[in-house]
């Protein structure tokens, strides 16, 4: 597994390719990229700043990957998450999962994102025309995570 928390941008294509070609028995790579939207809660967003809790961030992301590997038969998981100041259309996060078959890779990738959204210590502050504001956590993200406790996949 690979976890990187960094201010620099990343090359998603390169990273996905690394995961894909690491083993010749990889059949599927599912990936998620999150990017800064230029609008949130109806307001234009001109800038986004991401704060995190160094040390805990990496640990929590690794714990999420370990959980995913326990639940599904997958090969490898990569998470890159940016921190610092970002602009609209900048990449925020990449999660990529390789496996033999697509169903487990899809489930694991979505699981990692749902847990990252609710457990990894990152906080977003956005700059809008009416000033700066902390992004509020969404109950829909809690709901998304709770699904995984109900299913027996």
């Amino acid at each position, binding site marked *: 597994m690979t976890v990187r928390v960094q201010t620099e941008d990343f090359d998603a294509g390169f990273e996905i390719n690394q995961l894909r070609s690491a083993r010749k028995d990889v059949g599927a790579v599912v990936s998620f990229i999150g990017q800064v939207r230029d609008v949130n809660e109806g307001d234009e967003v001109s800038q986004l700043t991401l704060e995190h809790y160094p040390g805990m961030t990496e640990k929590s992301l690794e714990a999420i990957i370990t959980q995913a590997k326990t639940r599904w038969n997958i090969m490898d998981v990569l998470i890159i998450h940016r921190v610092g100041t970002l602009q609209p259309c900048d990449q925020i996060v990449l999660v990529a999962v390789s496996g033999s078959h697509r169903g487990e890779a899809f489930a694991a990738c979505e699981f990692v994102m749902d847990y990252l959204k609710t457990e*990894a*210590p990152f*906080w977003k502050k956005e700059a809008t025309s009416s000033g700066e504001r*902390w992004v509020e956590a969404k109950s829909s993200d809690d709901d998304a995570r709770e699904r995984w406790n109900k299913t027996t996949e």
Partner: protein
Amino acid sequence: MKIKLFYFARLKETLKYSTEDLELGDAEGPWTVLKLKALLSKRGDVWGQMLMGKLKVRAAINHELVHDNATIANGDEVAFFPPVTGG
């Protein structure tokens, strides 16, 4: 006993504290997250609002998310922060 405290995001900004070392009376132990919140809340209005008010606060001990009744030990690193919003 001695602990190290961290504050993040809105809490850091409002409390104007990023980190501090704190001495907790062993006689008043055992210390839980809730008891620590109550102690810190006595520092003033804004502390009470941030830690015991309407806003949700999450706590971590040594980098693990914990509940209010988790016990704090000597040397622990305790952090308070709002619900996370990464991804």
